[in-house]
């Protein structure tokens, strides 16, 4: 075996090992261990262990629960999965699609006071694409939410 | 309107990628054809 072909064999072997590793990750790892976000029910079911651990939490913004302080850039709302509801507190302007009733995923920690402190707020869009109904303007909700500050 | 920045970026990137790849392929083909022609196989390789 020439040195060149041995080197190539090592490289090809390495490539195959990497590919197998990814295959394992894909079929073994993600399915079993990697849950992208917890629901409020699942987080609360953890009891004491839920506190102060970094976690992703997903659910729907409960209609009528959004409180936005434009000066402090402080956003509070309730996140629900239909069964359990948690108070979420987040700082900074939310993404443009944020509105009551939409799905969101927040990253942060659940605190003992019963408030989920979010460091990152992500809006989950549904698979529906529609122009606004007559009389409704796109992003009206967002504009109302943020007031003059953005326009 | 800040949202247009993202739209322009998306369409611009699409065109840059597609045109760059098309040019790369054409250049590669031209080089290969020239190589084949130089090797005395011009009859097969030239259009």
């Amino acid at each position, binding site marked *: 075996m020439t040195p060149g072909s041995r080197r190539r064999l090592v490289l090809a072997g390495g490539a195959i090992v990497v590919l197998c590793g990814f295959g394992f990750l894909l079929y073994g790892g993600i399915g079993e261990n990697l849950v992208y976000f917890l629901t409020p029910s699942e987080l609360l079911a953890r009891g004491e262990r839920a506190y102060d651990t970094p976690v992703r939490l997903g659910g729907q913004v409960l209609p009528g629960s959004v409180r936005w302080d434009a000066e402090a850039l402080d956003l509070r709302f309730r996140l629900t999965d239909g069964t359990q509801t948690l108070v979420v507190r987040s700082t900074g302007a939310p993404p443009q699609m944020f509105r009551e009733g939409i799905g969101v995923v927040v990253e942060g920690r659940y605190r003992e006071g019963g408030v989920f402190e979010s460091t990152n707020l992500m*809006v989950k869009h*549904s698979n529906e694409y529609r122009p606004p109904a007559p009389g409704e303007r796109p*992003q009206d909700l967002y504009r109302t939410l943020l007031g003059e500050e953005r326009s | 309107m800040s949202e247009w920045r993202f739209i322009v970026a998306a369409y611009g990137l699409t065109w840059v*990628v597609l045109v760059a790849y098309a040019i790369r392929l054409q250049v590669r083909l*031209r080089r290969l054809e020239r190589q084949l022609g130089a090797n005395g196989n011009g009859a097969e390789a030239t259009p």
Partner: protein
Amino acid sequence: MPGSFVPAVVSRRRYQILGIIALAALVGAELLGLSASPPDRDMGHLQKIMYVHVPAAWSAFLAFFVVFIGSVLYLWKREERYDLLAAAAAEVALVLTALTLALGSIWGRPTWGVWWTWDPRLTTTAILLVMTVGYLALRSFVDEPDRRARWSAAVGILASLNVLVVYKSVQWWRTLHQVQSSPSTVDPAYALGLRLNALAFLLVLVYFILLRYRAARLERLVEAQAEARELAQGEELHV
């Protein structure tokens, strides 16, 4: 031997015509999509990114389908052209998958609020991208054509089966990425633009694969010529 896989060499100019048609179709479809879509209820004008992101993803999936077909046919028939077809489609698939990820990132920042997140759809797509890089790297590491074709057919099948995982990821696991849209969830105002842009991307895909396939065949021809020359020189020395 070289003669057996030399294609009837079509003029590069014909490919250029196909390329011009494909890119012109893309211009037309994009202009229609951009001008005819009203702002979306939630996304506003950002919905328009759909016309590049979704067709890029669909054509990447199709390119992987060609990789799968080429790899299976090679293992079955052991004809070099199928190996070269799979290799050509894999390179195009890499370009389109990378484009899909980048466009998704540009779309995600203003809508979701993040450029990237490790949700299952994004993660499996990133894995698909890495596997495709691995496929092409494997091809460049192995010089012996038969062994290269066998090994890369195996990796090609593995990588293209991955597409099913990417496609199904939004149904199997919780994701930030939405599930597939369907005609019932996309307003007709957007459906036409999406279809036309998908069609234009399909033409671009065909153009890319044909062009890359031709390059792959000519590369083999150059290789074979070099081998023949070496052989001839060797004989001269021995005489």
